């Protein structure tokens, strides 16, 4: 069982209520004059310190992600942040969940930067890839109607470039390259573990099962039942493709806050969560633009709109907020969740919204000392029993390997 911290790295210097009131959006068109570089630099310093602390406390890894043109997540290049964190950590895995391949003019740049991170960190990279969020397709003026096709081709190119000796030629629908021959080569051979991060599209789960790629469910606000369904779907698909399901290649993203009592945890989380929640809602107005037309098929968009409307609550709280509480509460709930999912990785956002550095580090310490050992022992025994052949890392053995 591996425990990762997760970080959106929000810009904290905004009056989010005012911003949403004035502009109706938290992404794309929210004026960048509202970003104070001094505040941002100080936020960055705290966030890098939090990654270093995770390393020190025995977390298995830290997780970064990519977002553009929003204070919600200020890592337009998670790879730059990964480079900084590589120098401040010694043993934690550095998971980038992930690079938004279609937003790049060529997947080669992602391969190159990822390889550099792997080298700088002496083989600690987990290489995640994402289609990219809806708002990013507005920011980059890129058609969402072929985003998934473009992503699939980009990923195939990445895997081949990391698995086969170069140079070779690539004649695809979206990418045409005379010379695929990335230098340097990564420490981890044939390549760092590859992950696809998704929100539960059957086509994505199917691809991960078929191609033996790690799957990281990154929709932190989805319900428990939904994610149980995704896990079942992936295990079934792996079976159908004649592959052994490996919990090391499946992960779940969640919010978390540990404090002395359940009441204190909920209160502290609630006080700071509103900020992040507001900005999420403000993707482009209330519950708009998460998934632009074409990003998902029409029937899923229609369903998403209806379900969002039906389940909307005015006071945002991510998901059903299961992991807010005292250490014992969080341990019990986490064990129960992970057993339901039968997975070997969990990524936890300790920092969310405006939660200040001291509160974040306190919660991380309590988790590392009082929750992680219990959950780790319990889950390792449980997974060993269920999947005696399971591995300890998300490293696939190569393209098309069984």
């Amino acid at each position, binding site marked *: 069982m591996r425990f990762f911290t997760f970080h959106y790295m929000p810009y904290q210097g905004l009056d989010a209520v005012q911003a949403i009131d004035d502009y109706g959006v938290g992404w794309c068109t929210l004026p960048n004059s509202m970003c104070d570089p001094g505040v941002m630099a100080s936020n960055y310093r705290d966030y890098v310190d939090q990654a270093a602390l995770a390393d020190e406390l025995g977390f298995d890894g830290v997780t970064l992600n990519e977002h553009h043109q929003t204070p919600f997540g200020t890592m337009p290049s998670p790879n730059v942040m990964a480079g900084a964190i590589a120098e401040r950590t010694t043993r934690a895995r550095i998971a980038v969940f992930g690079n938004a391949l279609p937003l790049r003019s060529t997947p080669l740049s992602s391969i190159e930067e990822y390889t550099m991170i792997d080298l700088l960190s002496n083989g600690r990279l987990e290489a995640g890839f994402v289609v990219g969020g*809806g708002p990013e*397709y*507005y920011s980059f*003026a*890129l*058609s*969402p*109607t*072929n985003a998934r096709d473009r992503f699939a081709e980009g990923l195939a190119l990445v895997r081949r470039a990391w698995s086969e000796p170069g140079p070779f030629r690539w004649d695809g629908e979206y990418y045409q390259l005379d010379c695929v021959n990335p230098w340097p080569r990564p420490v981890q051979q044939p390549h760092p573990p590859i992950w696809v991060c998704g929100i539960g599209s059957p086509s994505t789960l199917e691809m991960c099962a078929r191609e033996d790629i790690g799957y990281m469910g990154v929709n932190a606000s989805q319900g428990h039942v939904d994610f149980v369904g995704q896990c079942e779907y992936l295990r079934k698909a792996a079976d159908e493709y004649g592959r052994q399901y490996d919990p090391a290649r499946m992960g779940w993203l969640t919010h978390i806050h540990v404090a002395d009592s359940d009441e204190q945890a909920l209160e502290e989380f609630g006080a700071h969560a509103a900020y992040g929640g507001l900005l999420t809602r403000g993707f*482009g*107005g*209330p*519950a*708009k*633009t*998460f*998934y*632009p*037309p*074409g990003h998902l*098929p*029409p*029937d899923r*968009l*229609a*369903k*998403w*709109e*209806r379900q*969002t*409307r039906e389940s*909307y609550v005015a006071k945002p709280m991510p998901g059903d907020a299961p992991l807010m509480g005292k250490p014992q509460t969080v341990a019990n709930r986490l064990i129960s969740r992970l057993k339901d999912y039968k997975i070997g990785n969990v990524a936890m956002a300790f920092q969310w919204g405006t939660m200040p550095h001291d509160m974040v580090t306190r919660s991380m310490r309590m988790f590392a000392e009082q929750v992680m050992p219990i959950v780790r022992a319990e889950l390792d025994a449980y997974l060993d029993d269920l999947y005696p052949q399971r591995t300890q890392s998300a490293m696939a053995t190569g393209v098309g390997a069984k």
Partner: protein
Amino acid sequence: MIAEMSQVRTPAMKVSVAELGSGVPLVYLHDVLFDLVAVDGDAPVLLELLAGSHRVFAPALPGFRDLKQLAAFSSVTDYVLVVSDLLSSLGLDRPHVVGTGLGGWFAAELAAFYPDSVGTLTLVNAFGLRVEGHPTARFFDAAAPNALGGRREIRELLFAAPDGPPGIDLVPDFPDDETNERYFAHIHASARIGWEPPAFYDPRLLGRLDRISAPTHIVWGAENAVVDVSHGRAYEAGIENAVLTVLDGAGHAVTVEQPEELAKSVVAFLEMHDR
């Protein structure tokens, strides 16, 4: 009026075509929303009115009936070729070509690529041009899923009266799943070509408008907020043989806002050139 529906084979794909009325042939290229004949042949009022004097051929543009068709479409040339092929498959010699919005763009391109294939050209609120200082509205921003806010934003773009009929009936705030799926499918199909820059226009089109030889009628809604009337004037200025009609009180969705006035204006021009 119920149209006869058929699948017409072209070299690239099968195209679903609705036919109605009788008289001189008229090919009608539809916009993103509202003026596509339903699968069961139920035709919009505007097409019924046009069919009163002409034989109307109304194809479904690629992807609008079946999103899978989009796989082979990524540039305006792909669309122009399939429309041109369709004229041949239907055996139509220099028909009237009428296009609205997105379909108007393809009609203008067709008339510029193949000037001899078009009898007359009618452009209604056509996309296709870049006009300095009058950019095409952020259409897909306004058309995005909006679980809580409803559809007012897109109605504001499309209709002169966003909260009155027919807008509120055709684009209700919280539609049922089936209506909503069709809406998203049409937005999706048009995003294939309308999203990426140049969005809903072709920077080269203005330079080749002078290739168009067909008598051309440009019709514009005075209140059009998607492509404002300056686009109509640019078409008028660029095409040698063009006249412009501006319909007061109409927006981009003129086909459903003022079908009678629009049909009257369109038919009056066509009848001057029927042969």
